[in-house]
C-alpha cells in the first residue's frame, strides 16, 4: 500500500536487531547515513511500545487469545503489547515486519506478506510512519520526545506505537459499475398497468419559419414607424426620409438592365411600362412571350378585391397607417402597378454630380421638405412596396403551372413574391386563400400585437429607437432584406437587431395577428376556398440559432430561376 518511496534504496535490511534482553550498551549500529548527522544522544536505541490493534474480521476470526493458543509466543503477544528496543536508524518497515512477526506470524517471511495490511502509527502525534521513515525520526515526529529536552523526566517516556490493520477493501471497489438504462421491453413490461392520459395529445405545431421573412418585414415596418415617431422632432430624420424617398423613386423607374429596344417594342404596343418590364424580365426578355402574356393577363380586373382589402386594412390597423392599402398611393393605381425590371442590384445608379466637399452625410441644417414626417414615411413605405412589386421577377414556369391550377395571375405573382419564388409555400399560401390579400402582409403589425409589444419593451430596443441610424437600418432592411447580415455586423445596430430577432423567436407563436384572423374570417364569410391551414412539411428544428439564423429572403431569387 504505502509504496511512495523508492524501495530500491533500502539499505541492508537487518543490520539492526532488537535486543530481546538486557540493556543496549553493546549495540553496534551501522546505519551510517542517519548516524552521521544525528547528535550522539540518539545513537542510543529507542525504547518503543507497540500495541496491536485487533482487527475485526467479518467472519469470526482468531482473536489474540486464539493466536496465543496457537503459538507459543513471547510475553505480551497475547495481550497485543510488545515493548522493545530499536535502533533509531531502523526503517519503520522493518520494525513493522518484526512487530507483525511478534504478534501474528511465525517468522518474518510470513510477516512480510501481512505487511501491506498494517501500518504503524505514532500515538503521540498521530503520525503514520511511511516505509522509509527511520524509527529515529520518531524524534521529529513525537512531541513527547521533544519534551525530553524540556525536562529530564521525559527521558523515560517511551514512544507508543499502534499497529493498525487497514480495513480490507472488497476487490474492485474502485471500479465503478455503470449500468445501462432499462430497455423498451422492460419498460413495456412494468408500465402495462399505467392508465392512459393525454395519450392522443398533439403538440402545438412549431412556428413556420417560412413566414419569418415576411413577418420580420412587418416588424420592421412597425418599428420604423415607431422610431420616426420618437424622433419626429429631428430634422435629420426628416431629411433622411426624404432622401431615401427620392432614391427609391429613381430606383422604381430604373429598368436599365433590360434591353431597351425590346421594352420599347412592348410599350409601343400599348402596354404600361412597368408591367411590360416585369413580364419581359420574367420571360427572359423574350418579346413574343411577353407580349402574349401581357395580352392574356391584363391587369385591372381586381377592383372588387382591392376594396375588400382596404376595408380589412382599416380594421386590422387601427392606427390608420394602412388606410391606403398599398397598390400605390394615389398616383400609383393598382392598374399600373405593372412594373418590370430585374433583380434589385446593390450597386447601380448613376453618379451624382455634387461638390466633392459634400459628404455622404445627411444634411443636418435645413429641412429638405416641409412635409410632415408621417406623410413622407407613408409615401416611402408605399413606394418601397411598389418597388418590390414592380421589380420582382416571378418564375415563369411556376407562374404558368400555378395559374393552370386555377389561381388568378395576380395572386399567383403575389404569392410567389411573398414566398420568394418557392413553389410549395406559394401553393400553400394560395390554398389558404391569403393570396388575394398578400398586400396586407406588407403592412406593419398593429401595436397591440404581442410580439411588437414584447419587442418594444426591451430597453435596448428603446435605446436604438432613439437613434436616427436605426431608421436608416430599418428602411434599408425593408428595402433589401438581404442586408440583414451586413447590419448585424454593425456594432451600432446589432444589439438592437439581435434583440428584435431573439424576442421574435421567443414570441413568434403569438404572431397570429388580428389581421390574420380577420382575413380568415372574411374568407370564410365569403365562402371562398375554405382556409384550412395545411401543416407544412418538415418544420425547421427549434434549435435554429436565433441570432445568426438563416434569413429566408422573399426577394432573393435563385439565379437559375430568374432568367
Amino acid at each position, binding site marked *: 500500500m504505502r509504496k511512495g518511496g523508492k524501495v530500491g534504496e533500502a539499505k541492508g535490511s537487518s543490520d539492526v536487531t532488537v535486543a530481546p534482553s538486557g540493556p543496549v550498551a553493546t549495540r553496534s549500529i551501522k546505519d551510517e547515513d542517519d548516524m552521521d548527522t544525528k547528535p550522539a544522544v540518539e545513537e542510543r536505541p529507542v525504547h518503543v511500545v507497540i500495541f496491536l490493534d485487533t482487527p475485526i474480521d467479518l467472519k469470526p476470526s482468531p482473536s489474540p487469545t486464539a493466536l496465543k493458543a496457537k503459538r507459543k509466543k513471547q510475553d505480551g503477544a497475547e495481550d497485543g503489547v510488545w515493548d522493545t528496543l530499536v535502533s533509531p536508524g531502523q526503517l519503520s518497515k522493518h520494525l513493522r515486519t518484526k512487530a507483525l512477526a511478534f504478534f501474528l506470524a511465525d517468522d518474518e517471511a510470513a510477516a512480510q506478506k501481512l505487511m501491506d495490511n498494517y501500518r504503524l502509527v505514532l500515538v503521540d502525534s498521530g503520525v503514520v510512519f511511511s516505509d522509509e521513515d527511520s524509527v529515529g525520526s520518531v524524534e521529529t515526529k513525537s512531541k513527547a520526545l521533544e519534551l525530553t529536552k524540556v525536562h529530564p523526566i521525559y527521558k523515560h517516556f517511551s514512544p507508543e506505537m499502534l499497529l493498525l490493520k487497514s480495513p480490507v477493501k472488497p476487490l474492485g471497489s474502485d471500479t465503478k459499475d455503470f449500468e445501462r438504462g432499462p430497455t423498451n421491453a422492460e419498460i413495456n413490461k*412494468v408500465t402495462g398497468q399505467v392508465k392512459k392520459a393525454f395519450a392522443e395529445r398533439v403538440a402545438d405545431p412549431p412556428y413556420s419559419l417560412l413566414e419569418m421573412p415576411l413577418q420580420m418585414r412587418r416588424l420592421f415596418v412597425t418599428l420604423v414607424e415607431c422610431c420616426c415617431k420618437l424622433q419626429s422632432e429631428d430634422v435629420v430624420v426628416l431629411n433622411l426620409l426624404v432622401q431615401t424617398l427620392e432614391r427609391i423613386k429613381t430606383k422604381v423607374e430604373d429598368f436599365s438592365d433590360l434591353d431597351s429596344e425590346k421594352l420599347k417594342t412592348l410599350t409601343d404596343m400599348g402596354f404600361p411600362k412597368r408591367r411590360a418590364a416585369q413580364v419581359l424580365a420574367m420571360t427572359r426578355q423574350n418579346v413574343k412571350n411577353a407580349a402574349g402574356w401581357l395580352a392574356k393577363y391584363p391587369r385591372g380586373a381586381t377592383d372588387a378585391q382591392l376594396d375588400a382589402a382596404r376595408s380589412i386594412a382599416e380594421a386590422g390597423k387601427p392606427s390608420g397607417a394602412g388606410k391606403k392599402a398599398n397598390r400605390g398611393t394615389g398616383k400609383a393605381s393598382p392598374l399600373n402597378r405593372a412594373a418590370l425590371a430585374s433583380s434589385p442590384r446593390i450597386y447601380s445608379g448613376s453618379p451624382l454630380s455634387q461638390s466633392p466637399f459634400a459628404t455622404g452625410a445627411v444634411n443636418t441644417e435645413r429641412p429638405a421638405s416641409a412635409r410632415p414626417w408621417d406623410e413622407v414615411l407613408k409615401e416611402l413605405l408605399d413606394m418601397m412596396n411598389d418597388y418590390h412589386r414592380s421589380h420582382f421577377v416571378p418564375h415563369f414556369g411556376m407562374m404558368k403551372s400555378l395559374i393552370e391550377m386555377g389561381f388568378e395571375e395576380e395572386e399567383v405573382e403575389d404569392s410567389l413574391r411573398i414566398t420568394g419564388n418557392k413553389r410549395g409555400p406559394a401553393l400553400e399560401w394560395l390554398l389558404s386563400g391569403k393570396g388575394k390579400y398578400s398586400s396586407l402582409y406588407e403592412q406593419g403589425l398593429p401595436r397591440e400585437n404581442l410580439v411588437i409589444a414584447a419587442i418594444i419593451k426591451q430597453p435596448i430596443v428603446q435605446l436604438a429607437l432613439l437613434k436616427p441610424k436605426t431608421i436608416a437600418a430599418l428602411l434599408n432592411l425593408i428595402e433589401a432584406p438581404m442586408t440583414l447580415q451586413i447590419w448585424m455586423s454593425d456594432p451600432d445596430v446589432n444589439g438592437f437587431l439581435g434583440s428584435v430577432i431573439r424576442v421574435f423567436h421567443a414570441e413568434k407563436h403569438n404572431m397570429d395577428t388580428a389581421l390574420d384572423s380577420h382575413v380568415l374570417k372574411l374568407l370564410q364569410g365569403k365562402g371562398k376556398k375554405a382556409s384550412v391551414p395545411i401543416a407544412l412539411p418538415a418544420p425547421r428544428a427549434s434549435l435554429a440559432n436565433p441570432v445568426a439564423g438563416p434569413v429566408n429572403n422573399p426577394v432573393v431569387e435563385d439565379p437559375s430561376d430568374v432568367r
Partner: protein
Amino acid sequence: MEEIVRNVFGDNFVETTRTRRNSPSPIRARKSGRSLSPIAAFDTKDRSLLDRLDARIASQLDSTNKGKSEKLPVEKLGRLGPAKVHFDIATHVGSFIVGPDRVGVGSQSHFSSLKANVCVFKGKWQYEVLLGSKGVMQVGWCTKDCQFSEENGVGDTIDSYSYDGNRVRKWNVATYRYGEPWLSGDIIGVTIDCDDHKIEFYRNGRSLGVAFSNVKSAPGVAYLPGVSLGDGENLVANFGATPYKYPVKGFSPLQDPPESDLKKGKLLFGWLANLIEVFEPPSPKNGSKVVTAVQQVPSRKAKFYLVGARIFRQLSQLLVSPYIVEAQFMPFLQTTNVETCLTVMWALIEDQDLIKCMEYVCISLLTKFRQSASSGEFPNQKASLSLLKRILNHERTRKLLLKNVFFERVRFPTFMHLKPLDDDALKVVAPVVYWEGRDEKDKAVYETSIAKLGREVGELEKLQLDVLKQLLITTDGKPGEPSSRCLFLHKIRRFIKENIWSARIPLMMQTPTPVMLCFFHRLLTAHADLLKSEGTLDENVHVPLKAFCDDGMKYFDCNRLGGAYAYLRRTLRKELAEFLGPDFVPPPQPRSEHADSLHGIVAVTASVDELSRIARPHQINVDVVLAFEGDTAGESSDSTDTSTEDEDIRNASGHRGAQLIGTMRASTSEVLKEPALHELLDDVVWIFHLGAHKQIAKMTALRENLDEFLAAEKDLRKKISVLKDGGSVKEELEASSQILKEKISDEVRHMAWVSAVIYTKNRQQDLIFLTKVIMETLNRASKVGSLLAFVPDFYIDSLCECVQAIRVHMHPTVPFTDAKFHGKSLLTALGSLIAQHFADERVIFSDSKDSLIEALATFVSSEQTLRAMENMKREESEILIRMLLRPYESRPWAQTNWILVRLWKGDGFGFRYTETPNQQQQFYPKMTGEGISHTNHIKPCPSPFYQKMVAELLVKDPELCKVFLNSVLNQLNWAFSEFIGMMQEIQNAFSRPDRVFIESRQLKMCSTCFDLTLALLRVLEMCVVRCPEVFTSSKRPSADLLLSRLCQVLCQILNRVSTSVGSFNQVWSAIVIGLSIPSMEAVTHYPILAAVAGIVLGLIEPEMKEKRTKESVGELPATKALLSDPSFQMSSVAAMLGRTPPTLTPLSKLSPRSKPKHDKVFSFKECEKCVAQYLMNRRECFFCKTVISGVLDDDGKLIPDLKPPPPPPVPSPSESGAEGPVQGPQPNPNRPNAGMDPVDNIVSYTLPFRNRHR
C-alpha cells in the same frame, strides 16, 4: 479505558462487557530486566473491553438496518432502472465529455443530447442540475423512444419536455416563453408528477410555475431525465447521489439515498463527536503540568486511538461516499473541533480514503461557496470560508490539499472569487437608486447602501485573505518537506501554465476572468501583508533581475524581451556569468520543452501527473465522439461570458488518487528551495496579464452602457418637456421613458456592485502598487545593460494594461490621481520609461515592441498623459522625437507615424474634429472590429511642445531632415498609388453589368491605404507649418528638391481626387447615393482635401503675406514650385475650393519656364519594362507631357528602341548615387549639385505605380 468507552459509546457498552469478563486479572508484572517502562501492558479488563468493542459496534450498526421495509415492486414504485443513476452514455447524440461518475457532462458539438439510465412512470420525481455555464441547454424529461439529432434535442419531439433558461423558454415541439433567465452556478430542479401529468421547473429552489400539464402517460411511456447542450455548455446532474440542494416536498430523488449508511453514519458520527470531546491533544503546557506523573503505558491517548480505530474502521467506508460527506460529515465538521478531528483521521484513515474524503469536503465547500448569494451578507460564502480556514489550520491537511486537491480537482481560485449578486439580491441590497436628475435625497441612501455592501464584501475578502495567508505559511517547512508556501507557489505556476495552454488547446479549461481578477487582488493583498510582516516593505519593491536570469522561476515557454531564454543564454553567456557571479551554474543545456515543463512537487509523481495532463487533450481528440473516462469532467472550454464560471465540481478518479498517495509521505527526496516573496509577486504580475485586466476592462462596458441609457433618458425628458400638445407622440415618448427608467434602475444597481467591489479605492491602490513594482523592476533591469533582454514579455504588457486599467477603466468611478514614483509623477516616470524603450534595441520580441509602441500611442492621445510626457526631462523627450523621426525605410513606420499625427491633430487645417464632420451622421452599416483608422475617432490633443521639438530637430539636423522627409514622401507616393489603384479596380467592378463581388479584404486594404495617405499628409503638414524653412530656405541644400517633390505629390493627389471622371469620384458617388460599400465609408473627399489644403496653405500663406511688400517672383520659392510643377492644374484647385476654375491662368506669368525640357530620364530597375512600354506608345513625359528624346539604361547606354537617337549619352553621377531599389531618385548626398542644374532641365521623375509591378 472503561471511562473512554463509556464516554464515547454510552454506559450500556461497558455494562455488557463487564458482565462478560470472567477472569479479572491484575496488572501483569514484568521481569525487571525487560521492563523498560513502568508498566507496558494492557489491563486485561481493557483488553477484553477492546476485544468486544468491535462486535458491539457491529451489532449496533446492524441493528439500524432492522425493520427496514421491503422494497416496493417496480410497478408500484414507478421507477425502473439501476440503483445507481447516471447518464447512459450509450444514448448520446453529438459528442460529450463525461465525468468519471457520469453525471457531469460537457458538450463538444453543436447540440448534444444525453439521457439518464432510469425512467419513471408513476409517482413524483425530481432531479437537479448544477449549471456550469449559462448558454443554450434544454433540460427536462423525455421517453426512451425520443430520437434526438444534432438539430433536435430534449423538447423538440412530441414526447419530450424541456426548459431553457438561456432563451427563457420551454419546449415541447413548439416553444413558449417560460421561466427566468439562468446563470451559471444555478441549480435547476426538474420535477415530474406522473400522477398529475405535470412537469415543473425550479431555479435555486424557486418554482418557475407548471410548465406542462398535459404530459402523456400510457403503457409503454416512461420518462427519463434528458439534457441537450449547446456547444461548450456543461452541467452536473444530481440524480440523488448527493443530497439535493433544493428538494421539493413530495418528490423523490431518482436514486435512493443510502438509508442504511445514513443510519450507521448517524451513530458513528455521534460516537466520533464524543471521542473528540474527550480527546485532549497533548500540548507542552499540559505536559508541564503532569510532569511528575509516571508514564502510563498504554497512555490515555493510545487508548483513544485504539477505541477510535474501531470507529473509523466502519466510518472510513462511509467517508468516501459523497452523499455521507455532504449530508453528515460537513455538518459534523461545522460543530466539532476540526483540528482534533483531522489529527485523528490522519492517524486512523487510509491515505487514499483521506484524500477522497477531503476532496468531497472541498467540493462541498466550493459548491456552497458558489451558491448565489441571496443577500448582501453572504452567509453561505462566509460559512464555507471559515470552515475552510479551520481545516487549513491543520498542517498536514493543508499540505495534502495543496498537493492533491487544490488546483487539481477543485479549482482553488474560485474560492477567491466574489460572484456578483443577482438582480433580486441587488434589489434587497440597494432598494433605492439614484442617478443624476433624481431626488437628491436618494443619493445619500444609495451611497449608504454601496458603503454597506462594500463593508460586507470587505469582511468576505478578509476571510479569503486569511485562507490565502494560511497557504502561504513558510514556517511549516522541514528538511525534506517543502513548506506550504513552496507548494502553493508551485501550484500557482502550474495554474498559470494551464491558463496559457488553454488559449491554445481548446479543451483545456480557462479560468474565467472574473475569478482571475479576484484571485489577483487577493494575492496582491496577501503579498503586501506578507511584506509588512516580514519587514521588507519599502518603496522599491521589485522583482530582481537575477530571478529572470537564472531561470529560478521556471518560466516554461514564456518569451523574454530579447527572445527565447535558450537563445539569450547562449548569446549573453558572458554577461550572464558576470552578473550572476561565478557560482552560477547555468541550467543544463537544452532540455526538451517537455522535460522543461516537468517541474513539480516531487519529480517522479509530478511527471506522471504532468504527462497525463499533457496527454489529455490528445486523448480527447482521438476519442471525441464517445464519452470517455477520465478526470476531465467539466473541463470543457467555457463560454467567455462575464459571469460564466466553469464548474468546479470535479470528482475523483481512483487511479490518479492512488498515484498521488506516494507524494504525501515520500517527499523525502524533495529538493525544493524556499521561494522568495518576489516569486509570488511575479505570479501576481502574470495573473494580471493573463486574465485580470480583461475583466477590469469589461466592467467599463457596464458603465458605458449605463451612460448611454442615462443620456437617452435625459434626451427623452427634454423632448417631452418641449412637446406642446400631447397625442400619440407624447404617449410614445413617455412609454419609452418609463422603460428606460426601469432599465436604468437595474443598471445603477449593477453599478453599485461595481463601485463597491470592483472599482474601489483599494483596488486602485493595488494597481498603482503593481505599476510601481513593474516600473521599478524594469528600470533596475534596464540599468544592467543587455541583460534587460531577460525580462519576461508579460511585464511590458502588464504594465500597459495596468496603467490603462487605472486611467481609463476605473477612472471616472474611482478618480485617478497621479501617484508619486521616486519623487516624480507616476505618469511622467512611465512616459519616460516608454520613451526610453519603445525603440530600445535590447527589446527584440516583436509583441513586446508592439506593446510599447501601442502604449506610446495611447500616451500621446490623451491630454493628461501627454502633459505628463511633456514634463519629462528634455533629453528624454529629444530621444523620443529622434526615434520617431528615424527614416521610414526598412522599419515598420505606420505606428510611429500615427504618433506624430496625434501630436499634430487639432492644429492642422480642418483637423480639429474628433470625428470629421462628414462622419458624424453616417447611416451606413459598418463592420465590426473595424479599426482602420487610429486617428479618426480620437479626440484631438495636439502638443505644441513636441511639434516645436520636431521642428527644431529637423532644422538643426539637415541630414536627419532630408532622410526623414524623403522617406515620408516615398511612402506617401506609395500609399496613394496603391489607394488609387485599388479604387480603380473597385470602380471597374461597378461598371461591369453583372454582379461582381469585391473581396472585403481588398476594400479594407484600400481604405487602409487611404488612411495611411492621410496620416502621411498630416505629418508633412506639421513639418511644413512648423518649420517651413526646411522646404523653402535657399540656404538648405536639400530644400529645393524636397519642395519640388512635395509639390509634385500634392498636385498628383489633387488632380486625382478632384477630377470629376476619376475612379475616386465615381466610387464616392456610389456611396453618396446610398449604395454602401462596407469599410469604405471613411473614404471621402473631405479628409484628403483638407490635408492637402493644409500643406498648400502652410507653404504659401507666409509668402502671400509677404507678397504685398516684395514683388519679386523669385522670392516666393514655394508658390513658384507649386505653380511650376508640371502637373499643376488650376481646375483641381478650383474643384478643391468648390468653385469653377477661373478662365485665366496666371501660370505663364509666374513661371516663365512652364515647359522644362527633359534631358535625362531616371530609370528604375524594377519598372524598366513599364517605362519602355509606356514610352513605346507615347513619347512624352508621364507627368508633364514633354517630349522625351531618349532613355538610358542602367549602364548609361541608350536604349535603341526608343528613338530618335539622342545626343551622346553622358552618364550622370547622380545615377550611380541613388541606386537603392526602394529609394527614389535622390541626388548623391555627397555632391548635392553634381551633374544637375537645379534650375534647368533635370526633373526627377518618379513613377507613381512602381510598387504595383513587383
